[in-house]
């Protein structure tokens, strides 16, 4: 078979891929591509994990170290099978936050920090470029095999670098055509994904075909293959535990962090059901891909001449047996592996470079800000296209200058170890809210540095690190030997670098996260990521700003395209109940817009652009406080309401009391009026009757005198009643003027006792006093006080029902002031009447007997109030007892 035929077939195959991609794009655009979103396509697109390095290299690996090659597949198998742990969350976050790449994920999680975006982007470019070179090499090598096998004067063998250049250029064209067709990641790269799915099928079929041919065609069945393996140099399984564990771990990590894997796993994912199916289907794919690796290696070692390159057994075995068709299929399989990886890696890298390096630079260089007119989409697209070309050019240059030898084959694992440095920041960001930007940056930089020093730079050979430095360390510092840091020897270089870089990376990430303090936006994003399943929308990144909806529309049109942006704005306006295209710039709307934009240009850039229009930093502490304040205000408002309603209740209670009092007063007034009319009427009646008798004049002298006496008594009684009433009304109105003077209490009591005893005949009251105790000087209106005492003593004379009435006057000093108790030995006042004794016209016993109007105690109470003291009935003293309290003279 000539290389010309080979090249023609390759070109036809590439044209077919173009057609597939084109068709799929068209179908998806027309909305008919439901099958494009099927889990099978998604699973097959994941197969870019198996690059040419695994397609050809796995057999080579197996030929050198037996079963160890499976570790590269076991890691991803574990990650996929455990999808519920990490991938499910990653995919959910990717969709909720419109993540565009690994760099975007890290940047977005840590407060949309562009610094982290740049770090991860640089890391990814450095880690991926050699890998792209490796793919170019595999394509040229496989072409060279055909060249050597065929005429020997083929186009390909003549100029391998030229072939590599052609391949790189072709891939660049394909990637630009289908990878940068649209900007919004929401309209995923259906064309590319479908083409990759087709390539996945081709490489699986190719490898299975070669495997089946080897097992049943060459060896004659499984048992014979087993015998061949037993007889081969790899019959013994040399299990290096360190490498086994480290490589399994490394491949698992790389599966998560490789930019191209992230692209197909998260960015191109349209449905979580895809992930569920892929969780078993992709491991199955890997299983089938590696099923025949050991047999091919063993048979190749047995059949092919000594010294032939085991990396190419997949091709050389069929060729040696004269199976040109099979060899062609194998070649296409390898070609597919190489191209699909390069395409996706280039898309992923170009997204990162344009979003995290070009766009921020462009934004900061253009002073006009984000709201000027003009289509930014062109800038982004051109940036991506240029990035793709540059990435491929880097790959090609690396291939040219590394010499394309055996050294390149080792680059696969080195590349894995480099990009694995993203792991702590990624997992920490997904599961730990305390992870901070500073921690992530320090961890990444440290891990990256160690990786570069211990693994990446030494891989360039003596040109960079001299053998002397490798064995003795730089400047003779033994503990700094690149492959034996801190004197740890005996590990494979990959394992050594992986252990050190991951340990230091994770430790610093953790440490610096603990001691640093996150910005508000970081904390918001952290909560969004870690709790993505609890709430995927509660984020409030924007405070209500003075953003003009029109400016935002202009900017959105430039990034998303006119129709799409207008549709978004219109829908939002309609949701707010407005017509037209300009909704209110509420925080929710800004949030939504930013997320839409981040699908095109990445979270950090979208945030910066919206920030330029909204003005200033997106989230300040004040904004957070404002959110907190809202709650606070609500609380305050409700507590105010509560206070008000309490006040109302209090007022109502007072009103009710006042009303009751008024009602009582009204009743009291009625009672008073009826009482007073009764009191007035009784003496008036007798006066009228007796004055009539006197007028008739039919009476003798003594009788006349008697009747006139009665009339006078009744008149005196009336006068006294009126005097009392006047006295009471004056006292109650507070119009009384007090005549304050100093006097001994004893003297006042003497006066009162004398006065009370002289007032009428009555019974003799035995008054007992303790004169020594009464020797107190008081300062008060002594006349009024005497009036009170007279009243009490007179009452005792009148009402004490004992056979030998006795009144004890007892003076004592208490805390409240001077206390004078008047206790008689009568039966006292019944409990139910105690409350009534101080009321006007209250008389407990027979009216006639009392001979008063019942105003005495009422007047006494008023007097005592005026004097600042009190008078109260003292129950439980064995008789009627009144207590008069005077304020203490000391004050």
């Amino acid at each position, binding site marked *: 078979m000539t290389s010309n035929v080979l090249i023609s077939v390759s070109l036809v195959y590439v044209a077919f891929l173009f057609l597939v991609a084109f068709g799929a794009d068209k179908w998806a655009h027309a909305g008919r591509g439901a099958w494009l979103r099927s889990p099978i396509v998604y699973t097959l697109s994941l197969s870019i994990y198996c690059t040419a390095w695994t397609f050809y290299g796995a057999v080579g690996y197996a030929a050198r170290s037996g079963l160890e090659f499976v570790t590269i597949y076991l890691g991803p*198998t574990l990650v996929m099978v455990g999808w*519920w742990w990490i991938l499910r969350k990653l995919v959910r976050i990717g969709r909720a936050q419109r993540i565009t790449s690994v760099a975007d994920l890290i940047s977005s999680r840590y407060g949309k920090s562009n610094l982290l975006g740049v770090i991860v982007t640089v890391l990814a470019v450095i880690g991926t470029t050699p890998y792209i070179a490796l793919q170019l090499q595999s394509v040229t090598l496989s072409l060279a095999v055909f060249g050597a096998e065929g005429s020997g004067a083929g186009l390909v063998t003549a100029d391998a670098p030229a072939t590599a250049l052609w391949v790189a250029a072709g891939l660049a064209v394909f990637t630009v055509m289908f990878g940068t067709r649209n900007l919004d990641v929401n309209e995923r790269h259906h064309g590319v994904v479908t083409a990759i799915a087709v390539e996945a099928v081709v490489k699986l079929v190719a490898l299975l075909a070669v495997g089946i041919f080897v097992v049943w065609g060459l060896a004659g069945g499984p048992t014979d293959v087993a015998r061949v393996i037993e007889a081969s140099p790899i019959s013994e*399984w040399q*299990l290096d535990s360190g490498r086994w564990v480290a490589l*399994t771990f490394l491949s698992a990590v790389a599966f998560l962090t490789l930019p191209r894997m992230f692209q197909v796993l998260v960015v191109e994912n349209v449905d*979580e059901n895809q992930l569920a199916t892929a969780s078993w289907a992709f491991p199955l794919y890997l299983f089938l891909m590696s099923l025949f690796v050991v047999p091919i290696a063993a048979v190749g070692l047995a059949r092919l001449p000594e010294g032939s390159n085991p990396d190419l057994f997949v091709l050389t075995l069929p060729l040696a047996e004269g199976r040109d068709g099979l060899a062609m299929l194998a070649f296409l399989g390898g070609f597919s592996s190489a191209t699909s990886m390069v395409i996706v890696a280039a898309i992923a890298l170009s997204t990162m470079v344009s979003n995290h390096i070009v766009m921020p630079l462009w934004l900061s260089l253009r002073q006009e800000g984000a709201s000027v007119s003009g289509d930014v989409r062109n800038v982004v697209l051109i940036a991506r296209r240029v990035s793709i070309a540059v990435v491929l050019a880097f790959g090609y240059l690396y291939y040219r200058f590394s010499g394309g030898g055996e050294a390149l084959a080792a680059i696969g694992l080195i590349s894995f170890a480099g990009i694995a440095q993203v792991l702590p920041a990624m997992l920490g960001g997904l599961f730990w809210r305390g992870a901070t930007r500073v921690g992530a940056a320090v961890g990444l930089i440290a891990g990256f540095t160690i990786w570069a020093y211990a693994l990446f730079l030494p891989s360039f050979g003596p040109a960079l690190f001299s053998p002397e430095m490798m064995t003795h360390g730089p400047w003779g510092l033994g503990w700094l030997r690149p492959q034996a840091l801190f004197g740890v020897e005996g590990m494979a270089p990959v394992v050594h670098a992986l252990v050190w870089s991951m340990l230091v990376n994770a430790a610093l990430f953790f440490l610096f996260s603990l001691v640093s303090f996150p910005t508000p936006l970081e904390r918001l994003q952290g909560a969004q990521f870690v709790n993505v399943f*609890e709430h995927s*929308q509660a984020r409030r990144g924007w405070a209500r700003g003075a953003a003009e909806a029109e400016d935002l529309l202009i900017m959105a049109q430039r990034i998303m395209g006119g129709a799409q942006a207008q549709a978004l704005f219109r829908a939002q306006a309609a949701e707010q109940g407005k017509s037209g295209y300009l909704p209110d710039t509420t925080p*929710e709307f800004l949030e939504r817009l930013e*997320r839409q934009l981040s699908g095109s240009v990445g979270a950090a850039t979208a945030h910066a652009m919206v920030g330029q229009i909204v003005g200033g930093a997106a989230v300040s502490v004040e904004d957070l406080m404002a959110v907190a304040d809202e709650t606070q205000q609500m609380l305050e408002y409700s507590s105010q309401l509560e206070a008000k309603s309490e006040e109302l209740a209090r007022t109502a209670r007072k009103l009710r009391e006042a009303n009751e009092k008024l009602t009582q007063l009204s009743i009291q007034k009625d009672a008073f009026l009826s009482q007073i009319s009764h009191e007035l009427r009784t003496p008036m009646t007798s006066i009228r009757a007796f004055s009539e008798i006197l007028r008739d004049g039919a009476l003798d002298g003594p009788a006349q005198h008697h009747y006139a006496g009665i009339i006078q008594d009744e008149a005196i009684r009336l006068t006294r009643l009126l005097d009392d009433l006047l006295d009471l009304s004056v006292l109650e109105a507070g119009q009384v003027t007090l005549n304050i003077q100093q006097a001994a209490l004893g003297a006042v009591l003497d006066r009162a006792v004398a006065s009370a005893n002289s007032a009428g005949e009555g019974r003799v009251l035995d008054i007992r006093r303790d004169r020594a105790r009464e020797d107190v000087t008081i300062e008060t209106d002594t006349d009024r006080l005497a009036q009170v005492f007279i009243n009490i003593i007179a009452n005792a004379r009148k009402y004490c029902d004992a056979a030998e009435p006795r009144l004890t006057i007892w003076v004592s000093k208490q805390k409240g002031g001077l206390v004078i108790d008047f206790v008689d030995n009568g039966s006292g006042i019944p409990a139910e009447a105690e409350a009534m004794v101080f009321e006007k016209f209250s008389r407990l016993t027979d009216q006639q007997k009392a001979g008063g109007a019942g105003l005495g105690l009422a007047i006494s109470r008023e007097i005592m109030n005026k004097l600042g003291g009190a008078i109260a009935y003292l129950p439980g003293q064995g008789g009627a007892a009144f207590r008069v309290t005077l304020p203490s003279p000391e004050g």
Partner: protein
Amino acid sequence: MAGPREPIFLGRETYRRRRLIDAMRLLPVAGALLFLLPLLGGGATPRSTALGGIYLFVAWFGLILAAALFVRALSRAPDGVGSDPLEPEAGPVSEADESRDGPGPEGR
């Protein structure tokens, strides 16, 4: 007791699903153990590549089979295979939600 036994626990479906998820979470751990088992003997005693390979591939295939069965069992749920009864937002974000737009379903 007469008659057929009624399930007492009403949220039986939810409970079963939770346990299923628990079991599935254990799958990668089981897989890691299976893949690391050959290390137990240490590198001292060399083994046959053929036999070791058969062991690895059988374990591998078993793992894939288990994963497939779990996904099959999980996909019977009305909310979709990726839904977790404990999470407030039932069901994954679907394409329809996304085109309606991003912040997710309203009214929560």
